[in-house]
């Protein structure tokens, strides 16, 4: 009782529990994979709209797999959140990096080549989001995801690929596949570490 009550650590543990199941990673990974395949195939619009199903699908999956194992929690609204600042900062940084690369490579004179460098912008945005999430919840796999996203940008931008959208398409497909695999691995481990409560040991009785 003499130790301080570290509310930040308690809150971080609660947030970490929410992300342990890997469902967010799986859904984002699948979404980016579809976007990437759509870009490679030349038509991404049908996949972009799928984002509207993200929240309802996540809620259903959590109700089916997560809440019966870890219990149900609602987070407080309106508290200052570090993640949105990371997102905003990442977008700004990504834009700055993209413009810097475009100027450095004299691409401004060749507008058709802009698409090739788009992976750099998105890689910085994604890296920022996952780094923010990693700092918020303390899960190692989000640091790895941030690193993968950051490395993916320059890697796929430097590839000489035919087609305007090939670089960005391959970037999203590759990053999406990594996130999906990471999410599946986390989900399987979660199911093993958090078995369903035994029959009859349900909620408190009246």
């Amino acid at each position: 009782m003499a130790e301080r009550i570290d509310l930040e650590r308690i809150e971080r543990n609660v947030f970490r529990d929410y992300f342990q199941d890997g469902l967010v990673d799986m859904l984002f990974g699948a979404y980016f994979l579809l976007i990437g395949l759509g870009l490679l195939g030349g038509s991404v619009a049908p996949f972009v709209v799928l984002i509207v199903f993200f929240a309802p699908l996540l809620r259903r999956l959590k109700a089916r797999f997560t809440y019966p194992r870890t219990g149900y929690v609602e987070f407080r609204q309106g508290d200052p959140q570090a993640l949105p600042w990371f997102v905003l900062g990442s977008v700004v940084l990504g834009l700055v990096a993209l413009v810097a690369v475009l100027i450095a490579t004299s691409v401004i004179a060749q507008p058709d080549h802009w698409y090739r460098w788009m992976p750099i912008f998105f890689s910085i945005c994604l890296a920022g989001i996952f780094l923010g999430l990693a700092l918020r919840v303390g899960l190692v796999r989000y640091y790895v995801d941030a690193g993968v996203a950051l490395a993916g940008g320059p890697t796929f931008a430097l590839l000489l690929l035919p087609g305007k959208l090939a670089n960005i398409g391959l970037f999203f497909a590759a990053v999406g596949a990594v996130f999906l695999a990471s999410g599946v691995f986390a989900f399987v481990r979660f199911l093993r570490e958090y078995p369903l409560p035994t029959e009859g040991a349900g909620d408190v009785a009246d």
Partner: protein
Amino acid sequence: MSPTEMGNTDLQPIADIDRLVHEPARLMILAVLYVVESADFTFLLRQTGLTRGNLSSHMTKLEDAGYIEVKKEFVDKIPRTLLHLTDKGRQAFQAYRKDMLQVLEDVAS
């Protein structure tokens, strides 16, 4: 006999500590509920490591004091007991933290 009656008013801050919050199990429950909007019974079981009976008993005490609100509902035919920290409970927890920090600083000095 209270510290005041004994003439030792320096111990009064310790005597004034909210005993309802001060109990370790209840303190854990309040600390978890303080950082979330609401949580169900199973979630609190996992977070606190208490037994069902223990958690249930302390929940009742906190509810009777008006520090938490307990709502029983059914979700897909499965019973769920949702707990939510009231404004009174939130203030009590904040006051407890402030009082304990003061007491511990005084003891350390």
